[in-house]
C-alpha cells in the first residue's frame, strides 16, 4: 500500500513538473468527455421526458390515408369506432400548420376541444370564443402576443383574422407548446376552411391498455383506408429519434470520438526523449520494470479520472443548468421556433460506465504500452538515447 502511495506521489509530482503539457492534456481530454457526455445526457433526458409526457397522449389516433398521404377523416367514423367494445370515447381532433411569412416560422394551430379551460402551465385560460386564442411562449415572444393583446393570422381565404390572446403557456411547457396557437374547434374549421363533416384525425380513449392493439386492428379492418397510430408507436418514434442508432447520436458522436482516437493514437505512437531519459534514470537508481510501469499507470489514471469527472461535471452543468446551448444549434436545423430545454436531471449510469470504459481504458493502454519497451531496455543505452 505504501509503495503504491509513494509511486502515486511521484507520479503527481512528475505531472506537476510538466504542468503546461499536463494542463493541455487535461483540457483536451475533459473537453472530449464533456462533448460526448453532453450528447448522452441531453438525449437521455429528452427521451425520458418525452416518454413520461407521451404516456398522457391519446391511446389511439386514427388518420385517414389517401394515396399514401394523410387526408381529412369523416366525423361519422367516430360513431362507428365508439361502438367497438372497449372504446370509452372518440374525439375529433382539429389541427394544422400555419406558415407565418412575417417571421418565417411555422406554427401548429390546434383546436382546444372540450374540457377545463384552466391549466397549471397556462397563464390565463384556453379560448372559449371563436375570436380568442392561447399561444405558446415562442409565438408570444416572436409576435409580441402577450396576454390580453391581439394576434393576427391570415386564413385560408387570404383574409386577416384577429384573435385576442386569452392565455400564454409557460416556458416550463415549451417543449410541447412552444409553437402552439390554440383556437376553438369551430375557429380552426373556419380558419382552414375545413369541410363541416371532417376532422384532421380522431383521438380514441381506451381504458384497458391491453386492448389498444386489438381495437386498432378492428378499426383497420372496418376502415381499410385509415391508419391507427397507437400510443406505443408514438413513444417508439421518439425512442428511435433519441437512441444511439439514430442519426442524431451518430452525427454528434462521431466528431468527438474521432478527436479522442487521435489523442490516444498520438500518445501510443511513441514517447518523448525527456520521458525516456527519466525512465533510464529511474532504472539506474534501482527502480524495477514493474515500478516504472506502475508509475505510468498512476499517471494515466490520475489524468483519466480527473478529466473524466471534470468532463462529466461540465456536461451536467451544460445540459441541465444552461439547456445545452452548444448542442441546440446542431439540433435546431432550420427551425425558427425552437424551445429552450428545461430538462429534469436524469442520467443513465450505464452510459457513464460505457463512456468511462471506452475512454479511460484506451488512454491507459496508450500510456502504459509505449513505456514497456523503454522500461525493459538497459538504463545506460536509454540514457544515452
Amino acid at each position, binding site marked *: 500500500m505504501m509503495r503504491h502511495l509513494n509511486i502515486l506521489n511521484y507520479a503527481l509530482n512528475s505531472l506537476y513538473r510538466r504542468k503546461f503539457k499536463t494542463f493541455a492534456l487535461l483540457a483536451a481530454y475533459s473537453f472530449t468527455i464533456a462533448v460526448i457526455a453532453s450528447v448522452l445526457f441531453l438525449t437521455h433526458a429528452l427521451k425520458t421526458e418525452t416518454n413520461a409526457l407521451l404516456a398522457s397522449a391519446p391511446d389511439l389516433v386514427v388518420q385517414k390515408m389517401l394515396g399514401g398521404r394523410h387526408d381529412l377523416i369523416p366525423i361519422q367514423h367516430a360513431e362507428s369506432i365508439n361502438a367497438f367494445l372497449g372504446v370509452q370515447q372518440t374525439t375529433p381532433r382539429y389541427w394544422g400548420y400555419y406558415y407565418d411569412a412575417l417571421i418565417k416560422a411555422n406554427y401548429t394551430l390546434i383546436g382546444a376541444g372540450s374540457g377545463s379551460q384552466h391549466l397549471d402551465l*397556462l397563464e390565463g385560460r384556453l379560448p372559449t370564443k371563436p375570436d380568442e386564442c392561447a399561444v405558446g411562449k415562442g409565438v408570444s415572444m416572436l409576435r409580441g402576443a402577450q396576454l390580453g393583446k391581439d394576434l393576427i393570422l391570415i386564413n385560408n381565404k387570404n383574409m386577416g383574422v384577429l384573435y385576442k390572446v386569452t392565455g400564454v403557456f409557460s416556458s416550463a411547457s415549451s417543449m410541447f407548446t412552444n*409553437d402552439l396557437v390554440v383556437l376553438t374547434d369551430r375557429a380552426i374549421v373556419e380558419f382552414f376552411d375545413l369541410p363541416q363533416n371532417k376532422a384532421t*384525425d380522431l383521438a380514441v380513449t381506451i381504458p384497458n391498455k391491453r386492448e389498444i392493439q386489438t381495437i386498432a386492428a378492428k378499426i383497420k379492418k372496418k376502415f381499410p383506408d385509415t391508419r391507427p397510430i397507437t400510443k406505443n*408507436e*408514438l413513444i417508439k418514434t421518439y425512442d428511435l429519434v433519441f437512441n444511439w442508432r439514430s442519426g442524431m447520436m451518430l*452525427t454528434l458522436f462521431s466528431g468527438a470520438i474521432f478527436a479522442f482516437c487521435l489523442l490516444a493514437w498520438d500518445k501510443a505512437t511513441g514517447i518523448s526523449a525527456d520521458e525516456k531519459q527519466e525512465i533510464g534514470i529511474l532504472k539506474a537508481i534501482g527502480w524495477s520494470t514493474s515500478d516504472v510501469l506502475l508509475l505510468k499507470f498512476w499517471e494515466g489514471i490520475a489524468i483519466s479520472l480527473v478529466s473524466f469527472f471534470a468532463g462529466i461535471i461540465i456536461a451536467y452543468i451544460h445540459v441541465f443548468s444552461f439547456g445545452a446551448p452548444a448542442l441546440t444549434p446542431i439540433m435546431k*436545423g432550420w*427551425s425558427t421556433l425552437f424551445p429552450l430545454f428545461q430538462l429534469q436531471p436524469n442520467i443513465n449510469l450505464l452510459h457513464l460506465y460505457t463512456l468511462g470504459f471506452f475512454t479511460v481504458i484506451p488512454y491507459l493502454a496508450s500510456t502504459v504500452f509505449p513505456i514497456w519497451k523503454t522500461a525493459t531496455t538497459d538504463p545506460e543505452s536509454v540514457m544515452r538515447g
Partner: protein
Amino acid sequence: MQQEQKKALVHRLTLTDPAIWTEARYTRHPSQADLFSPFQDAPASFDHFPAGSIIAPPPFSSEQSP
C-alpha cells in the same frame, strides 16, 4: 409536481409530439407524418430539411404490408 402538470397539459390538448423541430410538418409531428412528406416537393426529391437527418422514420407497425 411539474411533471404531473405537463402530463395534464398533454392530456387536455391531446398532444402527440413535442414541439422541437418546427421547420417542416414531418419534423414537427414525426409520429403523425406519412412516409411521403419528406420527399413531397418533386419526383426523386431529397429530404432537404436538416432535422430530417436527425429523425429516423417512425415505426408503422400497425400498417399491414402490401
